[in-house]
Each structure stands twice: as structure tokens, then as C-alpha cells.
């Protein structure tokens, strides 16, 4: 099988990640931050090393780098934590359900109100759409750095600047961007949410939330943190306030190797490689009866959404699967993006990783041409 569904989760993983996972299960069996015996100390050190690597990657403070179980978890912590006192929140028109659903659920319970800023044909107009929706009670803006359906890179720095000017918390969803674009907290991000298992090549069950601590995140969960245990009041400092209960130490330890892998390859080289595969794929489909969902003048991470005219996306993906290609079809958990695109039946999504190569892309193109 050739995997072109790396926007969902990257596979394969680097060998170093697999080895670290196995090593962690066998050797690092302590509960990080709990107790002082050697088993827990060695595990805690390994978790600390990953925390340092993640903080360095995004230009963050180590203590403000929180481990979660995935990007959805990070986004829920951020959105519900920032909006716990009510207020108005703006999300983009291409948000994944990981951001849109918690906002909608809070609004349904009358815990906040929300507006959706349309992703326009230009970055300037998109930023303007956010600006127009800002109200006196707007507390936060959630915007994906890059959409998971078409890979469109949003004008997140412009939106961040706007938020800074208006004293609004800017929550960035980096699921499709981290490891692909050089994202830094200094871009104006107040809270960065991302997964560990996509562009950072870590195992499933790993996610990251990074805060610049400008806005307090009210914890969604309370529990054991290994600190201030006499106090029934949950800690109010990071990372403990958002890390209740035992961490996914095995996954976190392996995530360090994923981040090391990205650093060694370099983000720019990874982007260049995957972008060239996308361009090759798009070029390969020229002259066929397909629709590619990209627009001139906009920027994209290495993701291509397409449809074969007259063929349901799910049917196309099923057929491609029979020929040995893994591509995801449907709504990709991002219905808002499909309303914008006018693709209510969904799309087929091509998303390469650093492990794919041009000959695999050529095989896919040839297969599409042969079938349809």
C-alpha cells in the first residue's frame, strides 16, 4: 500500500520513533513527576527532554508547553478554557470540527456566542472578514494556520496582529502546519494547538498546547498533577494546570524522536519535498476530467483536494484503495470548509509525507488516468 493520507496521521513513522516507543515501554515505566524513585526520575527526565524539544521548535517557554492527547484535546482545552466566563468567539469558515464543535457546543448551552469569518479569495479580504466581526465582547479568535481540506494557508500572522491590537486571544490550530511551516509563538500566537502524530512524526495519542500565558486557560479537568497535593484547589500554573492524570509518557518520549527527525530533515526541506509531490500530482492530472480545489494567489501546505467529475469521492477513494493507494475521501471532519468550496459531497484528499516519492505519485496519476 502507498499512503497518501498523511494529513490524517503520518505513516510510516521514522524508525527512530518506532525504536523509542519500544524502548519507552521496556525501560521508562515510571509515572512522570510522581514520586522520587529512579524509575520515575528517568521517565520524568525523558518527558522533560521532549518538552524542551517541542518548546524550542516553536520558540516557546518550556513550562508553557503542555502535553495533550491530540490536537482536538488541545483545542478543547484552549477554547473551553478561554471562553469559560462567556463572551464572543470568532472562528474561520474552514475550521475543522475539532474547533467548530466545541464552540458550537458552548454556544448551544448559551455559554458563549460565536461568528464565522469567511475565508475569502484573498488573504487581505479574509483578514478583513475577521476584523468586521470583532465586537466589544469578543474574547478569542480561533483560526487554523492551514486548512485540512485544501491545505490553504490562512493569513494567520495578519489575524494575530489584529487580535493583538484588540486584546483578543488568538488560538491557532497548527495540526496541518506544524512540521511543514516554521511556526513560532512570536508570530503573534497566544495559544498554539497541534498534534504530535502528523507533521511532527510522533505516535498517535500525542498532542501539544503551547501558551504565551497572556490569557489564563481555565482547566477543563482537575486531578492529580504530582504537585501541591495537599491543596484541593487544582494548580493554576502551567504545565500542571492542564496536565491532570498520568501522561502518555511512552508516546511523549517517542515524540521527541519525531521532532528530532523534523529538525534533522529541516522544515523547509520537508515542505519543499512534499510541495513538489503535490505540484507533480496536480500537473499529472492536467487534461483529465478532474477538479482541483486550489486558487491562484493563495498559499497551500502540501495537501491537494480533488474530485473526479461524475464520481463520488468515496467511490473514487474505494477504487484507489483497491489499486493500493490510501487516500481519504469525504468531508475530512471539516464541513464548514466544504460549504465554502461548494463540495457538500466531499472531496478526495492527496496528502504526501516526507516518505513518499515522485514515482509513487506517477503511479497514482497513471492509475487515475487508467480507471477514469
Amino acid at each position, binding site marked *: 500500500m502507498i499512503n497518501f493520507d498523511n494529513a490524517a496521521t503520518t505513516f510510516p513513522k521514522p524508525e527512530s520513533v518506532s525504536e523509542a516507543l519500544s524502548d519507552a515501554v521496556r525501560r521508562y515505566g515510571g509515572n*512522570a*513527576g510522581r514520586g*522520587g524513585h529512579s524509575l520515575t526520575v528517568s521517565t520524568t527526565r525523558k518527558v522533560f527532554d521532549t518538552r524542551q524539544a517541542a518548546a524550542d521548535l516553536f520558540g516557546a517557554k*518550556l*513550562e508553557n508547553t503542555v502535553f495533550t492527547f491530540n490536537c482536538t484535546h488541545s483545542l478543547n482545552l484552549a477554547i473551553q478554557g478561554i471562553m469559560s466566563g462567556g463572551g464572543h468567539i470568532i472562528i474561520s469558515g474552514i475550521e475543522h470540527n475539532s474547533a467548530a464543535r466545541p464552540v458550537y457546543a458552548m454556544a448551544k448551552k448559551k455559554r458563549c456566542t460565536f461568528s464565522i469569518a469567511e475565508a475569502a479569495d484573498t488573504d487581505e479580504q479574509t483578514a478583513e472578514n475577521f476584523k468586521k466581526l470583532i465586537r466589544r465582547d469578543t474574547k478569542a479568535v480561533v483560526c487554523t494556520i492551514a486548512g485540512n481540506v485544501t491545505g490553504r494557508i490562512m493569513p494567520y500572522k495578519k489575524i494575530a496582529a489584529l487580535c493583538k491590537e484588540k486584546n483578543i486571544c488568538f488560538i491557532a490550530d497548527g495540526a496541518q502546519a506544524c512540521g511543514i511551516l516554521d511556526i513560532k509563538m512570536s508570530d503573534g500566537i497566544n495559544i498554539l494547538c497541534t498534534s504530535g502524530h502528523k507533521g511532527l512524526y510522533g505516535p498517535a495519542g500525542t498532542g501539544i498546547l503551547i501558551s504565551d500565558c497572556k490569557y489564563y486557560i481555565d482547566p477543563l479537568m482537575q486531578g492529580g498533577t*504530582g*504537585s*501541591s497535593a495537599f491543596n484541593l484547589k487544582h*494548580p493554576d500554573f502551567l504545565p500542571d494546570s492542564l496536565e491532570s492524570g498520568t501522561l502518555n509518557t511512552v508516546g511523549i518520549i517517542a515524540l521527541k524522536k519525531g521532532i528530532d527527525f523534523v529538525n534533522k530533515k529541516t522544515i523547509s526541506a520537508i515542505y519543499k519535498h512534499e510541495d513538489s509531490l503535490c505540484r507533480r500530482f496536480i500537473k499529472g492530472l492536467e487534461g483529465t476530467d478532474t477538479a482541483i480545489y486550489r486558487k491562484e494567489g493563495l498559499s497551500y501546505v502540501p495537501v491537494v483536494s480533488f474530485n473526479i467529475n461524475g464520481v463520488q469521492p468515496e467511490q473514487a477513494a474505494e477504487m484507489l484503495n483497491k489499486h493500493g493507494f490510501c487516500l481519504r475521501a469525504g468531508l475530512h471532519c471539516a464541513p464548514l470548509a466544504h460549504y465554502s468550496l461548494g463540495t457538500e459531497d466531499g472531496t478526495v484528499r492527496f496528502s504526501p509525507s516526507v516518505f513518499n516519492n515522485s514515482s509513487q505519485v506517477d503511479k497514482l496519476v497513471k492509475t487515475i488516468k487508467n480507471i477514469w
Partner: protein
Amino acid sequence: MYKTFVRMPSVTHAMSAKKLLSAKGLRCDIKRSIKASKNGCSHYIIVNADEGYVRELLDSYSIPYTGISGEAVDG
């Protein structure tokens, strides 16, 4: 010779402090409190340096601590 004991809010802060102080050439160890403090289990660091210097370093890097005390020791 001086030793400074710094009570840290969490193990992550303790490890951050140790990393910083070690990088500054100071010998630094992380220990669990033998007796639970009023807040419960905690980690503290022991640094071979005087309190003022340790305080200055931690403050300059915005590493929080919940208590600090120094003492002169033989040697």
C-alpha cells in the same frame, strides 16, 4: 561555601531550574521534600551557591519558586 534550597512548584519547574543553573556552572540537584509541605508533595533543588545569586538567576529567567533559603556550610 553556601548551599541554597529552593522549593519548586512542580517537577517541570525544578528541571528547568536545574538546567539553567547547571548551564551557569552551578552544581544543582533535584530532591523530593522529605516531609510534605503545607501544600503537599513537592520538589526542591539544592544549589551550591548563595541564595542571592540563585534568586537573581531564577528571577531573571522568570522561573517561579515557592520558597528559597540559603545556609553557609563547611568546606
